[in-house]
């Protein structure tokens, strides 16, 4: 097919040799004056053209004076000129910052967007810094079609959860990150201000170069560095300050309402419901405004000479949470530099150092406050914490929880590139990632109530270290012959990750103050000491990679990629696997036949296919293990006697999980690129999914035991769209963008078969992933009303524990009775549509940007409402409960637990939402004033983040991503806050 195409093209080469003459000239940059090699020059109305040589010179044959030459070059504004009678045409191209984005980073290299055959989306660093967050990923939300980003809770320092093109695995479905050539699982520790851009690689062709690592997508992070020729140092300073407010409160019963319900359940509990206290626990545990500030400041310097370039950045971030005592603090230091040792040899290093400290960020108090009785005062008359039955006192929980986590995250790499012969370059890069952290949690001896007390003070110390190194050696070759452009890459990489943790528990410390939080022989509890490797960060890997990009005449593009990976996580026999991908592209816009359609300024088709692997399972899943510390107690002294026995079952037949993906897309632009559109279709089938299949109890591995097997298959399919319009009216520049994607997620196999019994349930029994339904689909009874009276109850099939006022379950199998077999699909945690609107405008010094985002089609299982071993407070809707015939057909009678709290559609809520993610208003001082300040740019801004979220969900935040079979289940984590910021950015 491809050959035919090429031959066809050659045969169409024109023979137009009429009144010809030679035109020559030099192209330079208008700003730097440097000559520009590689500029595309096109003779408009024909398919003829050329590129400038190494000195920026060109020469071209034209036929007539009326011919027009179009000069285009990445990063510069396209310039068109009439030849006229000139024979020398020197051109100065102006910078186009917008166009600069048109280079994208692909694995082990960069590509012009027009040459790209895969699916890659780029987000500039300036977008990432808009959101006051410690994680640069927060800024990615709503910026890339096909990517779902959810807040991992609102705790200080919390990161984000990312899904690229759906959920293709039951395993870890996070993408990988490549930062300055180092492959990482997490980039929450990076300072967004140090990031130049993020490139999200989505399809198989783009990710195939990362082979086994890329099945869930690859996000390449490019950190800032100086641009060549930027001789004068540039200093950037920015600082912003934000205040927070709980974005949404959960509507719960007040004291009087709760007392009414309690009286129904236990008559006589409250004699006068008008006299009970009304404690709003949410008011008591949350703070806001100036009491919950976020401070973010950074300073950086960049500069370059012909011999080298540097970027030096330092940042400080502090986030005080909306729950007292929770906070996160971080320093970031970034140093990127490179040296030109000779005309052929370049050397560089990139280093990131991030010391951090977090306190009480995993707080359980939110769930406690959600359930605490509102009829009780928080304090006793003597000022001590009052007993709150069932849950304990939320304020005491805050008081007695002291949990710290601190450490150092660092990545660094050193590389050199050597130009061997023209176009052939060798690069070797050695990178390390380091994670050293320690945690300590201390609970003093205290007594609030019999159920909330700690008889012996307790200290837990944890020490963790992880070191991962990655050595990559690549040979790349670039060659242009006539209209053929070839870019080839071959490489070899080796990686090893080692890790170790130590947990040291102690009891009965001599003093409660932090000065005494140390372990010694008198307080250590040897039975709980733990030491081992971190199973998900202990592995080694060897890979070989190959890629060829070929383009003919800027029109016909081909990419072929092959990677061979070997992973220590698989048994010897199944260790290595090959991951191939091919992609083609057609820049139709460069075809001669497009000349008449001047309104169309870009038109490109592309398609790709490939297979990518995944090995994100703990390192030892192939082995059946023997557990330590399985002790017996014998003798009159109750002595603890060591024991060991089988603990977990491994699978010696494990093999690679693989994802086959097909991608097809079209890129269009109209009217000088004022309107641009990209559409892409993807279809991904992940097979041999490594799944922890729960095994029957009779296997003897205990409650909740599972074994890892390659036995599931999942389909993700969708359409991505990204539309942009930018234009100007006088001094007003404005832009509008719409992007998003649809998603269809469907389980094709779970246990290697596709029968009715082919399903996987989660531990709580609230989800069932079965053939034909989305992964992690909610599962339970379908509710279609409330039994109004005894005769109503008698008229329908019902369980023996149902009474008038209880929920009516649907007899889905129509066997005349309600049994477990009537449980059915009641909702999906996966959105069918993700979307975002972005608006921007600039007028003189003013700029405004508004980002909306949302999703539709997903559900949330409100499990926090159903866990009721005891009497707890209720959500507000319980006030509308059934209290007698025809009082409600939707809200059951009050009950403390049991029947009405079985998994059912009653607890499934829509997770659709629409959010004003960010609105920013900025003002830049005019040039005259900045000159007086000796600054290049001074900008002030105010912004609001998470200003509002419209959602029918009753909980704090409708974004609840968990592992695939426990996603969308709300347990009431640290809530989400709205943030209002003000800040300044100065460039000298």
């Amino acid at each position, binding site marked *: 097919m491809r050959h035919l195409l090429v031959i066809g093209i050659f045969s169409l080469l024109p023979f137009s040799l009429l009144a010809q003459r030679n035109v020559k000239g030099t192209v330079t940059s208008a700003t730097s004056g440097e000559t520009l090699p590689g500029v595309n020059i096109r003779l408009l109305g024909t398919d003829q053209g050329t590129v400038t040589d190494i000195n920026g010179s060109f020469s071209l044959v034209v036929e007539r004076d009326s011919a027009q030459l179009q000069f285009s070059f990445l990063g510069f504004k396209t310039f068109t000129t009439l030849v006229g009678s000139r024979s020398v045409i020197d051109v100065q191209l102006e910078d186009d910052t917008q166009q600069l984005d048109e280079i994208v980073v692909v694995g082990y290299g960069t590509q012009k967007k027009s040459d790209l055959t895969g699916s890659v989306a780029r987000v500039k660093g300036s977008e990432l810094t808009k959101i006051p967050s410690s994680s640069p990923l927060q800024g990615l939300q709503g910026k890339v079609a096909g990517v779902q980003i959810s807040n991992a809770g609102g705790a200080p320092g919390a990161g984000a959860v990312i899904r690229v093109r759906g959920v293709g695995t039951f395993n870890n479905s996070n993408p990988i990150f490549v930062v300055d050539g180092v492959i990482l699982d997490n980039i929450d520790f990076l300072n967004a201000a140090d990031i130049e851009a993020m490139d999200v690689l989505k399809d198989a062709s783009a990710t195939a170069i990362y082979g086994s690592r890329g099945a869930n997508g690859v996000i390449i992070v490019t950190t800032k560095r100086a641009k060549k020729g930027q001789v004068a140092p540039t200093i950037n300073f920015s600082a912003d300050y934000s205040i927070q407010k709980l974005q949404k409160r959960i509507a719960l019963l007040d004291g009087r309402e709760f007392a009414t319900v309690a009286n129904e359940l236990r008559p006589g509990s409250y004699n006068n419901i008008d006299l009970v206290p009304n404690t709003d626990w949410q008011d008591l545990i949350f703070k806001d405004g100036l009491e919950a500030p976020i401070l973010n400041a950074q300073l950086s310097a960049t500069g370059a000479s012909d011999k080298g370039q540097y970027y030096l950045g330092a940042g400080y971030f502090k986030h005080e949470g909306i729950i007292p005592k929770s906070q996160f603090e971080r320093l970031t230091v970034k140093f990127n530099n490179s040296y030109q040792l000779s005309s052929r040899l370049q050397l560089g290093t990139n280093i990131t150092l991030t010391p951090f400290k977090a306190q009480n960020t995993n707080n359980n108090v939110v769930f406690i406050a959600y359930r605490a009785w509102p009829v009780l005062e928080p304090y006793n008359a003597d000022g001590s914490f009052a007993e709150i039955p069932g849950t304990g006192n939320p304020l005491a929980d805050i008081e007695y929880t002291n949990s710290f986590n601190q450490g150092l995250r660092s990545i660094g790499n050193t590389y050199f590139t050597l130009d061997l012969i023209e176009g052939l370059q060798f690069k070797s890069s050695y990178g390390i990632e380091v994670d050293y952290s320690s945690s300590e949690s201390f609970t003093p001896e205290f007594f609030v109530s019999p159920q909330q007390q700690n008889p012996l003070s307790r200290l837990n110390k944890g020490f963790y270290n992880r070191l991962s190194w990655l050595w990559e050696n690549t040979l790349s070759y670039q060659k242009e012959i006539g209209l053929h452009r070839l870019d080839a890459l071959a490489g070899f990489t080796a990686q090893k990750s080692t890790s170790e943790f130590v947990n040291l528990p102690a009891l009965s410390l001599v003093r409660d103050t932090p000065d005494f939080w140390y372990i010694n022989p008198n307080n250590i509890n040897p039975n709980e000491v733990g030491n081992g490797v971190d199973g998900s960060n202990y592995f080694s890997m060897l890979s070989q990679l190959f890629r060829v990009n070929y383009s003919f005449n800027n029109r016909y593009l081909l990419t072929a990629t092959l990677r061979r990976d070997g992973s220590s996580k698989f048994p010897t026999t199944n260790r290595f696997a090959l991951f191939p991908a091919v992609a083609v592209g057609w820049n139709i816009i460069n075809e001669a036949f497009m000349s008449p359609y001047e309104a169309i300024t870009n038109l490109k088709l592309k398609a790709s296919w490939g297979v990518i692997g995944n090995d994100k399972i703990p390192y030892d899943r192939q*082995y059946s293990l023997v557990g*330590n510390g399985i002790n017996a107690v014998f003798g009159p002294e109750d*002595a603890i006697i060591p024991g060991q026995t*089988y*603990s977990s079952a491994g699978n010696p037949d494990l093999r690679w999980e693989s994802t086959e993906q097909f991608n097809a897309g079209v890129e269009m632009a109209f009217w000088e690129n004022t309107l641009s559109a990209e559409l892409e279709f993807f279809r991904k089938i992940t097979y041999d999914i490594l799944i922890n299949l729960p095994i029957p109890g009779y296997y003897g591995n205990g409650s909740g035991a599972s074994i890892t097997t390659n036995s599931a298959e999942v389909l993700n399919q969708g359409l991505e769209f990204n539309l942009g319009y930018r234009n100007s009216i006088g001094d007003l520049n404005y832009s509008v963008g719409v992007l998003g994607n649809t998603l269809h997620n469907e389980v094709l196999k779970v246990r290697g078969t596709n029968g009715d019994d082919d399903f996987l349930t989660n531990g709580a029994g609230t989800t069932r992933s079965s053939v034909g339904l989305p992964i992690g689909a909610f599962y339970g009874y379908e509710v279609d009303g409330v039994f109004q009276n005894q005769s109503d109850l008698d008229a329908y099939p019902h369980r023996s524990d149902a009474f008038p006022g209880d929920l009516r379950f649907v007899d889905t199998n129509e066997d005349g009775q309600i049994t477990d077999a009537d449980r059915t699909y009641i909702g999906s945690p996966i959105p069918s549509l993700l979307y975002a609107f972005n608006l921007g405008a600039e007028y003189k010094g003013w700029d405004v940007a508004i980002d909306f985002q949302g999703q539709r089609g997903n559900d949330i299982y409100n499990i926090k409402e159903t866990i*009721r071993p005891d009497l707890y407070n209720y959500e507000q809707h319980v006030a509308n409960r059934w209290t007698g015939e025809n009082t409600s057909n939707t809200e059951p009678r009050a009950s403390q637990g049991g029947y009405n709290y079985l998994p059912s559609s009653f607890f499934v809520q829509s997770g659709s939402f629409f959010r004003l993610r960010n609105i920013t208003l900025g003002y830049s001082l005019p040039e005259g004033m900045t000159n007086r300040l000796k600054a290049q740019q001074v900008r002030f801004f105010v912004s609001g983040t998470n200003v509002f979220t419209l959602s029918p969900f009753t909980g704090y935040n409708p974004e609840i991503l968990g592992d695939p079979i426990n996603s969308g289940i709300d347990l009431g984590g640290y809530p989400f806050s709205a943030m209002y910021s003000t800040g300044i950015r100065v460039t000298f």
Partner: protein
Amino acid sequence: MKTSNIRKKLTLSLAILGLVSCKDFLELPPQGQITQSNFPTSAEDALLATNAIYNTLRFNEFHFGLFPIMDIMSDDAHKGSNPSDGAATVGPYDTFTHISTEGNISRWWNALYQGVQRANVVIENVPDITMDEDLRDRYVAEAKFLRAFFYFDLVRAWGDVPIITTTLPVTDAERSSKALVYELIHEDLEEAIANLPEKSEYPIADLGRATKGAAKALRARVYLFQGNFPEAARWAQEVINSGQYDLFENFADANSEAGEHGIESVFEVGAFGQEGLENGGNQYGNVQGVRGTPNRGWGFNRPSLDLMNSFETDDPRMEATVIFLGEELDGILIAGDSQTPDETTDEDGNLVEIECYNQKVWTPGSTVPPSFGHNRRFIRYADVLLMAAESLNETGNVPLALDYLNEVRERARGGNNALLPDITETDQALLRDIIFEERRHELAMEGHRFWDLVRTNRANSILGPLGFVSGKHELLPIPQIELDLTGNRWPQNPQWE
């Protein structure tokens, strides 16, 4: 740059590209853990693997799934704790409204099969280890005793259950008939009896391990459940005649801390007074411990008024079975829980429940940790005597039955001859009822009552008013999750479908 120079560099680069492709780089064995293929292979391993089976006996799930549902399902006890705690999860067992998805059922099932697997590790591998033969046989015998012990719970609670005798079970196991399960139990116990030492033959530090006496006593209990009275009588009498056991003078010591591993203990599991399985703790006592002040636990499994009223006048065993509010135990005043009504009445104002706790799990102390130190007694000598009495009465040896029965009563009266007079009844049917009542009072709150009612066909008449449905509630439902995980191949128990 000269061409040769370039060539050199090119060669170097290619060399680097191909470097490090050694296989060993990708071999990363488990760290700090042995793999199952290498364990147990030595005498030390054999001991470790045997010890680990006993660990199962301290699982909180092992004790009826965490909450003592077998007592709660009987007429001896109510749910306990405060009215709301566990109302939806544990409460249903009190009224026979429990369902197949409730967690206790699957936790207990899983714990028992985990015990079976740990026993299988020893039974399958230890015989091949080159080591002291007596010791080797003892380890295997301990494992067989424990495997029988686990299967006996399984077959009583669920009836037909899969028989697993290897560490690599088949993937399509079916439920085997009760008869086959009992057959396995007897085979295991026979071998255990042959190779286990008597209690006195163990070093004192090994108390708590399976003994010949324990295996014989368990065999008697199993036969009793099968209605094979001659065999039950035989094995119970072998225990009695072994001379290894006797009754404590003081009834309370049969379950107290002072009586741990004492003369009356036939089989018990040791526990250290600290929370956490790894710390030697056993939550069995904590789940039932006094709630409130002192805070000793959760207060589940509350003795019923019916039980208290059933005791003969002034039977000292009632005081030793029930902790009442206001009572002082080991110098600690029992004040109870502020969220639990001292007295609960029904709609007609009749007293139906009082706040009280199970004294048989009491451990001295006023804080939580010691409550994890209660050694649960699985088989004690008084039970063996009563099993002998019951089975001898059934086989027609009334005089000997009366001897054993009166031995228990004599101890119970604690030296006060005005109480609990000797039984002289010789009518088999009447004596049967008397022995049965004696079992209730002697063994109350120790997890026997429900099963005793079922095996003697009394469950329907006695538990019927509480919600028991004949033909259904004799067995627990197979956990729904197990039916799901086995592809809904297995039939559910009758009337639980």
